[in-house]
């Protein structure tokens, strides 16, 4: 890993985090329900994009750096944009307000829809290429 890779990861991570913050902000203004919709939408769209770009540019999922695409976009931007920690914090909050069943539902739903979204991105890239 070179200094340039570190720079790409940092730059992508900063931009991705800003976009996450902004999407969360906008979603919060439009939607006022108890479902953590902002984090959910962020994670699902991020999963779609990683599946699409990885397949389109034939990036092995274990290669996280070495070029601007995998270090800046896949590791940096999408890693900064999507979030696992907020999802778990949302679940802990839901457990407090809506019960364990709803918290489990949110976690499992995010993961399954995330898998499907990643697969859709992957399949779309296959169709194109």
């Amino acid at each position, binding site marked *: 890993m070179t200094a340039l890779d570190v720079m790409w990861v940092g730059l992508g991570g900063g931009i991705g985090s800003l976009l996450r913050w902004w999407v969360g902000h906008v979603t919060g203004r439009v939607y006022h329900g108890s479902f953590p919709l902002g984090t959910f939408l962020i994670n699902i769209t991020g*999963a779609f994009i990683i599946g699409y770009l990885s397949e389109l540019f034939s990036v092995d999922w274990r290669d996280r750096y070495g070029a601007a695409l995998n270090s800046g976009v896949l590791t940096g931007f999408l890693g900064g944009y999507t979030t696992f920690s907020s999802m778990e914090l949302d679940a*802990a909050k839901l457990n*407090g307000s809506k019960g364990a069943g709803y918290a489990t539902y949110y976690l499992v739903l995010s993961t399954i829809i995330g898998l499907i979204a990643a697969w859709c991105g992957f399949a779309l890239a296959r169709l194109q290429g």
Partner: protein
Amino acid sequence: MINAIILVFAGGALGAMLREFIMLMVPHVEGFPLDILVANLIAAFLLGLVTALHKRAVLNGDVNSMLGTGVMGGLSTFSSMVYGALILMMTSTSDLTVAILYLLANLILGYIVVILGLKLGGDGVTPAPRPRIG
């Protein structure tokens, strides 16, 4: 507003770089993305801790934006977690089992550590505030 933008950007950049360094330090396990799991668990624990400290006003809003939204968000990743699992699932039946166990490990351990972080920071997850009487 501009403060929040700078703090989230700087925090997210730092978090993403930290994630890469953590992942480089985690021993490589063939066919199991242990490195992403470790980064996610560290982030979830620290996010619980920062959230609790913010709620108790030990940390102010700016620090919370930088650490909670920025660093912990950049440190953890959902996209790499599901994509790694998806690729494993498409490889073979035995890898499919590993992928499901891997996702469950992320979800369950992540939940446990976020609660631990919240408790350590002095805040159990508080139920929705009760309406004030009187």
